[in-house]
């Protein structure tokens, strides 16, 4: 017997999560209908499902199915635009729907990957979602042609209307959708030239705004089910430690408390009839931890551990050409500097949460996840049930930033629910739990050496990164003979993802891996954040040593696509004209997530107070599916990167993260947000990401401007720790 859960949140139903807009007038619905492999789709189970990506309802609603998660980045809208472009449907009737990973599994992964990270949501699925739209259009047209007994080649489709040109007869998608759904998908479809796009490439409004301004229950934390209980959790505050014991008699009689449960080997949860009561009891619960080997870990010891790596003999080489070390020996001027970047938390505004319902023959989870499929695997593994008896229902995410690619909170929710069969359990982390149990932005230091010849030409660069590997911490099987290839993000000699931008004859970029006992994670921008900061700050140091303008110095060595975005950013900020009185400028350029990016900053510094007045971000993402959504991502990445630069730092004492909430881990607010102008300059030659790459250039552009303003070079993040009275 299959258990069918009942959900009371109207917009979260069992099958799928529909984003609609009551306010915007049109009856929005997004649905999906096309398979990644057009032949591989199992038979449609939903009326009007033309293919896996597109469902057309009799009322002409077009439901576009979206496999990737929506965490604010806007991919849901962008992907729908790509499908709609090829579908030739009426955009005002488009709504979006998330298929479940369980459905994906049962249909031979017809929707491809659900993973939403690395700024890959659009660039990695654009090809097959567009084919999904094109195949559905072909089938709809064929269905109309068959009904009219005319050749399909005589029919055209536009705006959800099919026209037989010779006779002028018309019909609509809604009228032929069921017939179309019975046809076989075409073996091949041709895609439009992006130059001919009318829906994609345009700054259309987001599909999800109306729900978000009305306070609709669209996030995981909003989920409510009949009979649902609430769980609060504490995991061992020391990483790697375990739960020894707890004394539930102290809290068992507190109001609303139902259960006190061991969760895995390192956590304890209280289940109650409201989250507040659960958390109140958890705070009162006496707990003893086995703190384990990391009980004495400290930031000071970690800093020393990393510093040793800056000059260690052994290091993994990520980029080498010429003889960098020889160029240092032969330099007319040798420039050297050491930088550092601390641990950061993601701090999604919606803390980690998941709602799980376990019965002996089925387990379902509702959660905000960046990867529905890895969440599904976690549900199956933790519940002990076959994966076919599990499913995950995605909600919208109250921020992701890489944190919600993890599945720790999903495992916990299932582990709790399994101990309370038949009762839906909503697990919610407190902000304190979220801050002290993150998968942290990795910690690194970097020693850079640059060689200038007698004519102040840059002839050599050695960049030694010492520090943590996310791959080693999370997926060590992906190391390459011990080397983590992604630590060289943006510094690679080639490839499509992130190429080092400067033509320098002698280069050595290497990594001394040093992994402290703090779990590292993918943090929006990932390794590009510190790599760009180190490289682009040091390029400024080299320009200064060479007596050159920082922009002109870079342009002398930058490869064409890198140079083009930097020039565009500089032009937009008016680099050739003086900055306002008391304002100073800095620049930075980088490549990450397969896009070329640059930033210019305009700052003033008064008594150690850095005021960032204005920033320009330029990006060449190859293709721009929705330029306004890209501009929002650039603004958002700047806020995220500048927040880290100004304030972001997690420190460790006695094996514990010392920061617990926004009072001890400050973040940027509206008063500090600069005016941001975005230049989107897609050249049509490739597909790049936009959700992350501009983070990396934000901080160095500002730091270089701070140097221009003060002559002070801030090399250790965050700025809040900088001693302005130092030399």
């Amino acid at each position: 017997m299959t258990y069918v859960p009942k959900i009371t949140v109207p917009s979260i139903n069992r099958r799928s999560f529909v984003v609609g807009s009551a306010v915007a007038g049109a009856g929005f619905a997004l649905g999906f209908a096309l398979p990644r492999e057009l032949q591989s789709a199992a038979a449609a189970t939903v009326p009007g499902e033309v293919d896996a990506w597109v469902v057309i309802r009799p009322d002409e609603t077009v439901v576009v199915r979206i496999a990737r998660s929506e965490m604010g980045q806007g991919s849901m809208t962008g992907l729908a635009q790509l499908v709609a472009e090829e579908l030739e449907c009426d955009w005002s009737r488009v709504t979006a729907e998330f298929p479940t990973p369980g459905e994906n599994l049962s249909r031979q992964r017809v929707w491809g990957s659900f993973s939403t990270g690395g700024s890959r949501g659009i660039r990695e699925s654009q090809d097959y979602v567009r084919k999904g739209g094109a195949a559905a259009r072909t089938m709809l047209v064929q269905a109309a042609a068959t009904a009219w007994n005319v050749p399909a080649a005589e029919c055209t489709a536009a705006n959800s209307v099919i026209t037989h040109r010779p006779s002028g007869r018309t019909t609509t998608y809604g009228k032929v959708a069921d017939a179309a759904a019975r046809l076989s998908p075409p073996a091949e479809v041709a895609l439009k030239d992006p130059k001919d796009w009318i829906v994609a490439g345009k700054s259309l409004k987001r599909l999800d705004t109306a729900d978000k301004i009305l306070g609709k229950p669209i996030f995981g934390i909003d989920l409510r089910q009949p009979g649902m209980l609430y769980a609060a959790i504490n995991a061992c505050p020391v990483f790697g430690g375990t739960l020894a014991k707890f004394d539930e008699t102290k809290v068992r009689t507190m109001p609303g408390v139902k259960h006190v449960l061991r969760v895995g080997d390192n956590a304890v949860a209280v289940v109650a009839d409201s989250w507040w009561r659960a958390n109140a009891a958890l705070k009162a619960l006496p707990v003893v931890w086995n703190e384990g080997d990391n009980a004495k870990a400290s930031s000071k010891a970690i800093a020393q551990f990393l510093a040793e790596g800056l000059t260690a003999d052994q290091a993994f080489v990520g980029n080498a050409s010429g003889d960098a070390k020889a160029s240092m020996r032969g330099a007319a001027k040798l420039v050297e500097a050491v930088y550092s970047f601390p641990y950061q938390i993601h701090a999604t505004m919606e803390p980690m949460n998941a709602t799980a319902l376990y019965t002996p023959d089925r387990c379902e989870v509702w959660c905000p996840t960046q990867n529905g499929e890895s969440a599904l695997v976690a549900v199956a593994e933790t519940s002990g049930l076959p994966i076919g008896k599990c499913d995950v229902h995605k909600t919208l995410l109250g921020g992701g930033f890489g944190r919600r690619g993890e599945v720790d909170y999903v495992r916990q929710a299932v582990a709790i629910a399994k101990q309370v069969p038949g009762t839906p359990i909503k697990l919610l982390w407190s902000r304190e739990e979220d801050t002290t149990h993150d998968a942290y932005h990795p910690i690194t230091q970097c020693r850079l050496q640059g060689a200038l010849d007698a004519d102040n030409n840059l002839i050599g660069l050695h960049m030694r990164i010492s520090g943590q590997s996310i791959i080693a911490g999370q997926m060590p099987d992906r190391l390459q003979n011990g080397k983590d290839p992604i630590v060289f993000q943006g510094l690679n000699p080639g490839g499509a993802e992130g190429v080092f931008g400067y033509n320098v004859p002698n280069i050595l970029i290497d990594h001394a891996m040093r992994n402290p006992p703090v779990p590292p994670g993918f943090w929006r921008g990932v390794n590009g954040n510190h790599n760009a900061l180190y490289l682009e700050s040091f390029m400024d140091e080299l320009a200064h040593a060479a007596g050159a303008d920082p922009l002109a110095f870079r342009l002398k060595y930058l490869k064409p696509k890198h140079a083009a975005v930097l020039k565009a950013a500089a032009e937009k900020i008016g680099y050739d004209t003086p900055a306002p009185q008391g304002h100073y400028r800095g620049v930075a350029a980088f490549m990450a997530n397969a896009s070329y990016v640059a930033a210019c900053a305009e700052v003033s510094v008064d008594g150690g107070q850095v005021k960032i007045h204005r920033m320009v971000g330029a990006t060449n993402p190859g293709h721009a599916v929705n330029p306004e959504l890209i501009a929002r991502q650039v603004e958002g990445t700047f806020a995220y990167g500048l927040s880290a630069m100004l304030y972001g730092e997690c420190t460790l004492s006695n094996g514990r993260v010392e920061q617990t909430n926004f009072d001890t881990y400050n973040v940027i607010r509206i008063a500090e947000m600069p005016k941001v102008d975005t230049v989107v300059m897609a050249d049509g030659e490739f597909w790049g990401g936009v959700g992350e790459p501009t983070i990396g250039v934000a901080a160095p552009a500002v730091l270089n401007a701070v140097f221009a303003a003060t002559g002070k070079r801030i090399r250790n993040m965050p700025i809040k720790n900088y001693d302005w009275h130092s030399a």
Partner: protein
Amino acid sequence: MIALSINGKPYNVDVEADTPLLWVLRDTIGLTGTKYGCGIAQCGACTVHIDGVATRSCQVPVGTVGAQKITTIEALAPDGKLHPVQQAWLDLDVPQCGYCQSGMMMAVVALLKEKPKPTDADIDAAITNICRCGTYQRVRAAIHAAANNA
């Protein structure tokens, strides 16, 4: 039982008097538009109006509310007609993830009541809500738009 007036309706809730209003709204009554972000009045995601004053509901023991009138995001658009602030938010597509935006809009509604044409400095001083997506620039533009449309 504690009597409350929320969005013009009377409620009686059976909770401890020290329970924060936030959790009564979310878990007891089911008005989940008001969000939990930090629990220490830092982020503003839980902002509601108490007798018209923007208040961080995570720090308000429900037993202290009494007869004061509570308004949440769910009541900002009675009869389906958007509040000018919501309209500006919709027109400018302000939200990204959207999680902080209920509290952000409630803070802005209160600001505009006090200062119908706020300056940028007024906004900087009054709007201290945290948005991790970085919608701040659009928030500022939407505040000015709402002020001009009101």
